[in-house]
């Protein structure tokens, strides 16, 4: 009777394997994001070069590509967010499952005690179980909250936060001391130039090989 109410819990092995797979995909997304960020930086540099060369049209083309890459980055960010959501859900589901298991244990214990109790105690027990059920529903509702919160960030607040960050950075730049002019180069007399060549250093691999040979008594 109670088994049918709560259903069978998911196998832990599946949850762990799924979390590993989600983590793996998350790593891939992060790598891809880094690659795209490098491309964005490269386009910005190219745009600057074209601007210095008075080639406005080419510079605008670079900025357009930059925007395209940034759109891809934003999409990847959303993907990562969704994976994080699902990972949190999975972990929450595990907590829910453990809660249900605990409740089942309690219900089984109550069922065993039922044999030694009268009908009034049974009614009291059912009331308690109903109360526990209501609590569980509230927990599940609370666990579902991140989806709504994540999907409904206040854009105005985010923009305000961004402006604050930009303002802080600008203020920090203003506090930096002015760069001093580079010192004039000092001429070294030709006769005093060092004639001995710098001894060549061994490569890290050669050091590794020498250490291995020493350790193996070769």
């Amino acid at each position, binding site marked *: 009777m109670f088994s049918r109410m709560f259903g069978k819990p998911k196998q832990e092995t599946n949850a762990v394997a799924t979390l590993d797979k989600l983590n793996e995909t998350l790593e*891939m997304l992060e*790598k891809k994001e880094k*690659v795209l960020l490098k491309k964005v930086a490269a386009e910005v540099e190219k745009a600057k070069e074209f601007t210095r060369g008075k080639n406005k049209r080419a510079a605008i083309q670079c900025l357009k590509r930059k925007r395209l890459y940034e759109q891809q980055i934003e999409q990847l960010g959303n993907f990562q967010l969704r994976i994080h959501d699902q990972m949190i859900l999975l972990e929450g589901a595990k907590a829910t499952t453990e809660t249900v298991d605990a409740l089942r244990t309690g219900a089984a214990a109550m069922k065993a005690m039922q044999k030694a109790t009268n009908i009034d105690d049974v009614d009291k027990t059912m009331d308690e179980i109903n109360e526990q059920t209501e609590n569980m529903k509230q927990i599940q509702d609370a666990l579902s909250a991140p989806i709504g919160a994540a999907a409904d960030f206040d854009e105005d607040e985010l923009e305000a936060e961004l402006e604050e960050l930009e303002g802080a950075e600008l203020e920090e730049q203003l506090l930096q001391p002015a760069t001093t002019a580079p010192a004039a180069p000092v001429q070294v007399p030709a006769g005093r130039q060092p004639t001995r060549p710098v001894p060549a250093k061994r490569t890290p691999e050669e050091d590794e*090989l020498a*250490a291995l040979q020493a350790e*193996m008594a070769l």
Partner: protein
Amino acid sequence: MMLHFVQPSKLKTKKMVFEDVYASCDSTTLEHLKELSSKRKAIEDSINECNFVTEAIAKEMSGGLESRFEQDIHKIENYLPFLEILIPYADATSTINQIQISQWNAALKIRWSSALTTSSFFKIKGPKFFQINNLRFELGMTLFLCGGILRERALEVLSTDLVQSATIFRQAAGIYHHLAQEVLPHLEPELPPEKPPEALAAVSSIMSLICLAEAQAVTIRKAEEKGTSSSLLAKLHHGVTLFLEEAIGIFHTVVTQCKDISSRLSEFMYFCKCLHELKGQQYLAESLKACGQIGAAIGVLSSVLNKVKKKIPGEDPWKSIYQKQIQDASEVLRKFVHENDFVWHEKIPSIYELPLPEGTKIVTFIPYSPKRWERQLSFKGLV
């Protein structure tokens, strides 16, 4: 990772009694011959598995050595100095002495089985014994056996002491090198058409190279424990393949001289070479990936996997070891391909554009110096 080829330690021999054949002039010589026969009998009983001594007694007799292999090596090392004293008499210059010594050696009946012929693997009627009436044959086969048992001893200590294991492999390589350079060349002109492969100098050269390959494989295991860089590990693994390729090359010339030689030896070298080539290319691929060349890494792994899958060992334990390595490399390749499809989108170069493997040999054999007791022997019938 290391395949096991036990045959070189599986020689068998027949009883020899020196004092019944060689005519002694004095009691010193007679005592020497008796001791020589006694020490040889200890070896005979051990390798023919006719030993009725319990393990505890065997340990006590050998002065506390636990390992059966170590005990056998101890017996051989006790026997060789006595045998070496007789070798100069085999090089008698006068015709009369040559005739006399030939008669004695014929009466000795020096007989050894071969572990490297095709028939020795099927064991239809028990081992076939080769009789060659030359003391160098006795010396050669004893040294070959010693090298084989040293290899087994090296494998025995592999799990506990990598340095000792590599050192023993190098000692075995030195013995085989000594055989190939100093002992067997003098014997080959006198070999009959029907001869064991072990009596050929080229086979000892092969065994020496195999021991060096195995010593380097043990060294690689230490390098992997230390967390050595992928690029160096790749070179070390390819160094092993260089040793084995050289040995395989010699084997092809041996086959023309000795058609009876078993293909098992050739297969052992081939599959070991493939395993180390696979492992070396896997490390090379990881090194390339770390340098941002995942396309080349995928090309390298795909190429070597296609190569090693062409031929698979037919039976365990070689087969399962081999397939495990292929499975591991395939998993690495799958991950690389997946990551390239998802992130990098790099082009995979053709087989002709792939970087060539570079091998480094870092092990050498430990030279073997034969010991010989300083003792003057005197025989009747020799001038």
